[in-house]
């Protein structure tokens, strides 16, 4: 098998297991390097050992001898009866059928010939929202995120604008009532530009 073939066989689960291996290795080594006292060291190292060994076994499970493979890879279930499992399988099949019938979503990207996976788009949009929100404050970023997201998925513009406004109001209410600095970012501070129209009484009256 060529390296290219092997690379094609790598799934997201393999990536996840490698991340877990690396993370557990840090939890095993760091207490030694930083000389943690026993009562701060034993428990994390104990749990990290389980994660490390378990992840390693799962990563190489296809190459394990039979008895060990059974322990690592075999699915077991003690509560679901056979007939219940059959019904669950039937339902999953039906769900898949519905998925096949409905086809892909209508997005702005697809309209202009760009194929972007919907989950990836959601993940990237949320990550951007987090970082820009951290840098510039959630209050100012929220309407752009909500309107941008709904526009991408071609939700009616009026609904998108309504949702963006409603979400911004919710963020503002958090600032007003829970005294959270969501109008200030770690890098940019746009709070002085906050319009006076954003007065809490006006907002509450508006919501009511």
């Amino acid at each position, binding site marked *: 098998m060529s390296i290219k073939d092997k690379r094609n066989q790598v799934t997201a*689960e393999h990536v*996840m297991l490698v991340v*877990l291996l690396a993370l*557990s290795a840090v*939890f095993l080594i*760091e*207490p030694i390097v930083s000389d*943690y006292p026993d*009562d*701060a060291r034993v*428990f*994390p190292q104990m*749990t*990290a050992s389980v*994660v490390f060994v*378990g992840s390693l*076994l*799962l990563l190489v499970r296809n190459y394990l001898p039979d008895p060990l493979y059974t*322990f*690592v*890879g075999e*699915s*077991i*279930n003690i*509560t*679901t009866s056979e*007939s*219940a499992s059959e*019904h*669950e399988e*039937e*339902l999953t099949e*039906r769900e898949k059928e*519905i998925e096949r019938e409905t*086809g892909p*979503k209508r997005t702005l990207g697809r309209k202009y010939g760009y194929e972007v*996976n*919907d989950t990836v788009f*959601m*993940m990237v949009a*949320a990550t951007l929202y*987090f970082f820009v929100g*951290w840098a510039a404050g*959630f209050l100012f970023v929220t309407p752009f*995120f*909500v309107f941008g*997201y*709904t526009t991408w*998925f071609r939700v009616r513009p009026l*609904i998108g604008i309504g*949702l963006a406004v409603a*979400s911004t109001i*919710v*963020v503002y209410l*958090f600032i007003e009532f*829970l005294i*959270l*600095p*969501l109008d200030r970012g*770690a890098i940019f501070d746009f709070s002085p530009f906050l319009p006076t129209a954003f007065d809490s009484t006006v907002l509450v009256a508006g919501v009511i």
Partner: protein
Amino acid sequence: MAVDAFVEGIGIAVSWPVIGWMVVGLLLGIILGALPGIGSPVGMAIVLPLTLPLDATSAIVLLAAIYSGAMFGGSIAAILINAPGTESAAATTLDGYPMAKNGLAKNALAIATTASALNGFLAAITLVLISPILIGVVLAFGSPEYFLLAILGISLITIVTQGSIVKGLVAGALGFMISTIGTGILSPTPRFTFGQFGLYDGISFVAALIGMFAFAEMMKLAAQDMIAESDVEMTGSIKDGVMTVFKYPKTTFKAGVIGMLIGMIPGSGATTSTFVAYAEEARSSAEDGFFGEGDPRGVIAPEGANNPTVSGSLVPTLSFGIPGSGSTAVLLGGLLMHGLQPGPTLFGDQLQITYALFISLFLGNIVIVLVGLSVIPYASRITELDTDIIIPVVVVLSFIGAYTLNQNWYDVGAVLALGVLGFYMVRYNYSVIAFVLGIVLGPIAEENFFRSLQISGGSYSIFFDPINRPLSFVLALATILIITGPFLKPRIDRALGRA
């Protein structure tokens, strides 16, 4: 003392604003449950940080009411659009949707409302009745037993959820491991913080719950198309539907018992109980049944099992801090966030709060009948909401909610990172509940682990001492048997020639 606490519990449950939050929770639960892809764990996880300004009792009653309401709400989408609002309503689609297609949508919804509420009502009474026994059991537990119970809980979860046992153990241990980030419990040593002050308090378990349930679920939902519009006519009779439940008392009762017992097993939850109840009914009524084609017993069984599962899952959650499902994991998070420790305290000094919760469940089922039966004619509208409208709103609420906890950006980052991890864990069949249990119980397990070692002078034999600590020995043995049992049994059978 228990009687005094019970009376006080009634007073708390019917007092303002507790009763108000119960009604709000139920309505919210019904709506969230009816939206496919949302359901109770997601709804509860989003609401959890928003309960910070509330008093502990109101917050817990609100969360439990969302859980209970979502159980009924899930059946609306299952019956009308063949897409269960919650996983626990999946079994209801098997006969609920055919009933609706046969022109009996109102009957099916009325059956779901009545069976769910009636058995929920009976299960709440049972919960109150068995609580004195629980108090005795809980008080027999010490530090070694609590540590071993956390391990046993994770082990149980790994075998009751489908998939490899090693995946479950890795998930649980990962949760424990993540919970150790931050200042040490017994000595003020910053652990795995790498000089970042934001990590000194560790990763908030509430942020982990939001990430694992709300954000991960939204990632899954992003790939799904718009929630289907109802293609059934809202015809039939609500009254006939209600009467149908009483026509099959055995089915209703059996489903309730199955629901409550399975609910008590950590990790099994309502998805398992509803399918087991459905399968049992289909088996026992095979002769005259027409299951899969709109048999009302096919709706009574899963719906009669779902709400008792809520009560059942409260037993391990409140007694030992071992949640029975994703929703009870969030509820446990709520208890801890509001300073309520599951175990002896909830069954001792704070027994009145426990009773108030049970009584709220009891009252909540009356509200479910009243609200449920009156919303039936308009039920189809709830299911028509577009997922692309729900997702950005949930993302905003998840991030803001996480920030609200400690005004710590690392908590918001944790929502994002653990959300992605949760998405892939679900996709590859790793137990999210075991992970969440690990992260929630981590500090409790670590503290009890060290207290046990302090008691024993550093000897690990305290966990395996059949003479002085028989309970801890039994728990340790049970854990070993649970993990190795499913693999050893076929081999033992084969060796004895019984295979």
